[in-house]
């Protein structure tokens, strides 16, 4: 997938993750994963979430059939 020459060039170009870098990465990713896990758990715990939970484009705008309106 990646050639050794490329890796050699890269390895000398940066120091890798510093402790602060690790902290920021793990903290940010961990926070987002925890938030997702919390939401998924709540959705899965609900008996019928599809009846009262919606994503924007999943919402029926009730105005899509002009003929019915008339």
């Amino acid at each position, binding site marked *: 997938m990646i050639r050794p020459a490329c890796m050699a060039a890269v390895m000398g170009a940066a120091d*890798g993750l510093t402790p602060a870098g690790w902290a920021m990465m793990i903290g940010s990713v961990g926070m*987002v994963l925890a938030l997702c896990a919390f939401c998924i758990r*709540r*959705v899965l715990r609900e008996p019928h979430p599809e009846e009262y939970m919606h994503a924007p484009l999943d919402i029926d*705008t009730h105005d*899509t059939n002009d003929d019915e309106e008339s």
Partner: protein
Amino acid sequence: MNDVSPQTPRTDRENWGSKIGVILAVAGSAVGLGNFLRFPGEAVNNGGGAFMIPYIASLLILGIPICWCEWTMGRLGGRRGVNSPPGVLSAIWNHPLARFVGGLQLMLPVVIYMYYVFVEAWCLYYAVQFFDGAFENLFGQATEGLTDHDDVVRNVVGASGGFFETACGQGENGAIFTLTGRGMLLCVAVSFGANFLLIYRGVSRGIEAFCKVAMPLLIGCAVLILIRVLTLPGISAGLGFMWNPDWPKLADPNVWLAAAGQIFFSLSVGFGLILTYASYLRSDDDVVLSGLSATSANELCEVVLAGLIVVPTAFLFLGAENAKGSTFGLGFVTLPSIMHFMPGGRWFGGLWFGLLWLGALTSTLSMLQPAIAFLEEGFGLRRRASVIVLGLITLAGALPIMYFSKNAIALDHADFWVNQLMIYIGATGQVLIFGWVLGAHRGIREANRGAELRLPRGYGFFIRYITPTFLIVVFVSWATVHAPDYVRGMIPSLQGKLAARAVYEKAAYEKLGPAWLDLAPAAAPLARTDLSDEQADLVDAQLTELLGPSPDVRVDRLPDWLRKLEPEATASAEPAETQAAIAGGLFVCLILLLAITVILSHVAYRHRMARIIAAHPAAEPGEDSP
């Protein structure tokens, strides 16, 4: 809790299927260009890991609270029979300022659509070109006979940059309207047509059903890449490049502005979309968990997937120079270059950009609904007529943005004024209406109606004090730090003089720079961007002494060797003046459009909305009728 009619008991499998369906729908709606293209560039250019501090602060203080407030106000407005932002806000507060904020939130998605659809077309064009093998041929020719890796990288990135400049009209205004730009023009037409056809036929829910499969597929692709990327040898260097914090950047207000702008853009809060869609909900549909789930899905794509993949991979394959580009540079120059170094890059690139196009399409589709709702309820138009009117308006706005494509001048300025000025004003107005007019207590009670997850304690204090203060502080910082440069960028005479001066400065620095910096006479001068602060101050002082303090260089006072550059300086002034005139013209157009939208909001309110709201009386004491 919900007034759902009795139903046949479901099997466990059906029940689980519907729950997964909700999760997929939320995930499908969350994916957009802001996640995979905009976030990595913003992060790496604004302090790396340090960027996450203002970013997470913006998410917690702005993103999530405003998202809940939009869902709640939208559903409340829907109960009063109105769906557009001016209608919803007027139903809550019968005041001209509500029409102003609503008008602004009506205009914003329309303007964003005008330029977003152009970027959407780029994705489609790139997908077609990848599948067609055009990139494979391009990179093959660019690297033919080369063995040194640095040369290969340089040529691949150069070829990719050249392709982007030509295909997307970055080199010349009007380029996509020429014969060579007809492929891109066709993709623009397809993207534009697909949006209006889908919304005209009322099948946006159909496309959403498709996206329930396609967007998780995009996320699945990204997860596979993530696993591969995280197991590459040396990935720590790439991750370090993205995540190691540059703490001093936190003192720069631009970093905080960029973080807040990213939150607004990627969560689609602050510009009326959620306000409109939530207005179609039933009065006891959940808004709190729905809003939080959409936010968390968006953050998963943005921070976890894009944050761990795009920049670290670009760094590994192409080096630091190419991993620290602009949003468009990373998305449309660096990423295609990376595909060259991947097995099956042709097909993977096609799939990637194809799915990105689909993600962008779902975003642009949702941007059209607020204006359609406004035309329907404000002027009594049928959906079909509303779609045609909106199609003509957006086409009229999109054409100049596509025409003035050199260095993405029109797109960049439109994005700047919309994302970094108007969204702040709109979001601030909306939060103040929620917290102080509707009232935090009543707003919380309304949000908790039918909620599967109740709003956290302290939300009222947050939305009344913390969120508006944060918005105002960020906005004032912007006004003092960032705005002056953009205002200066719209003055043609000043930009012309600065461009001419840049020619003299470049020549003077190349000739005298080594002496000013006490370098050996034969030494190549350092790039000015590489100078230390002290060196830069020294060079600036010398240039001021040589050329004068004013942007207007007095040619008659220059030494002969500089004076002979006058024709070159004059030639460089003209395009700069043109670009500044375009930027200024665009700003004037935006202000005019805002004024027209606000006036129309007022007229529509008087004409129809007030009667609609009056016909749907407040459901509980305290919900004021106009």
